[in-house]
């Protein structure tokens, strides 16, 4: 099975980290993975997004054009990526920051109060973890235990409280579904 995922949001929303954590997790489960970030201007501003492919076969193309899963962290991302989701795919969106609502009916749509929950946990920055938790539960492509390992690989230099907070956020998201 091959899952093609796009995660999108502001620079500061941990979009790239989310993608890398997913890729690490895939690798930990001995799957083939590719991760491809794409930014706006040379480095500054605009919205960032990344494509992650997780598969049990050799991955030909790391380029994702119709993802089966999209995580939209902010308004512009929703507008941009909702139309791309493959029929029958799943769209996760950050209900806290996104005013408008998805329109498609041929895909499954999962609203997540990512920032709200994150703020409850005391740190807006972990909204991406909440999203990831919800996503893996829903799609089942990766187990939560692996995700916890993976985020520790990604944030090797982070302090323990932060890592624990990340785990909590993953769990909160996981429990949502």
């Amino acid at each position: 099975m091959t899952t093609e995922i796009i995660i999108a949001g502001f620079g500061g929303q941990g979009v790239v980290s989310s993608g890398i954590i997913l890729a690490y997790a895939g690798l930990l489960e001995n799957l083939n993975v590719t991760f491809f970030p794409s930014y706006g201007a040379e480095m500054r501003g605009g919205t960032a997004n990344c494509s992650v492919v997780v598969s049990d076969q050799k991955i030909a193309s790391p380029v994702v054009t119709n993802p089966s899963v999209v995580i939209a962290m902010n308004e512009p991302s929703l507008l941009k990526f909702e139309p791309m989701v493959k029929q029958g795919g799943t769209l996760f969106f950050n209900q806290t920051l996104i005013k408008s609502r998805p329109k498609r009916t041929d895909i499954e749509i999962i609203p997540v109060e990512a920032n709200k929950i994150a703020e409850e946990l005391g740190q807006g920055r972990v909204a991406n973890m909440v999203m990831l938790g919800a996503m893996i539960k829903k799609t089942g492509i990766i187990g939560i235990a692996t995700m916890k390992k993976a985020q520790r690989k990604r944030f090797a230099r982070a302090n323990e409280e932060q890592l624990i907070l990340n785990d909590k956020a993953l769990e909160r998201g996981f429990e949502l579904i």
Partner: protein
Amino acid sequence: MIFGRPAGLTDIKQRYCPGCGHGIVHRMIGELLAEMNIREKAVGIAPVGCSVFADEYFNCDMIQVPHGRAPAVATGIKRARPECFVFSYQGDGDLAAIGTAETVHSAARNENITIIFINNAIYGMTGGQLAPTTLPGMRSTTSVKGRDVVKQGYPIKVCELLNGLDGPYYIERVAVDTPKNIIKTKKAIKTAFQYQLDNKGFSLIEILSMCPTGWGVSPVQAKKWIAEVMAKYYPIGEFRNRAKEAK
């Protein structure tokens, strides 16, 4: 309204990071283009650097040019159309690294152009690498343990360097960390613009400017760092003013 977005800036929302010094300088240039009534004859030059987008932000004719070559392009424009007001806007990597030759020679020619030089001691656009102006011991993504002057050499003090030439007419270093310095900065830019209008020749205004992202600090910490560290290494002041020498 006594203070508000000047006519010399377009309405486009700027892409710079929060607390970036570029915006402060843009605002002042935008004001002067309007106040000095030169917007309609101005041709501005956007470099390669975070301010590559200056060609969207200044409300006048603009050209975006190869990394470091702005002074050459400015020379071409000014020589071909002396009636135009020509200014370039450049970062430290652009002006003091890859563009060193064009900077030095346009100054030596006393080319009748104005260069606004944003010294933020870092390569902002590409992600915070070592700049020719990165301070000794200062961290960057290519000097993670801090600039080692033995291996990576000493920073270049652009005003001091160009002051070794006979050519340039006006050289001053300023900063945008406090309202007081910001007001001084605007005065310096205005003086430089006026000298070009008076056909005096080459002016360069070096502006110590915050890059919170590249420095990895908050905007407020960034502005404090300018006063506490940066301005000590790059002393603020007038280095060359041939108008005064003349007297």
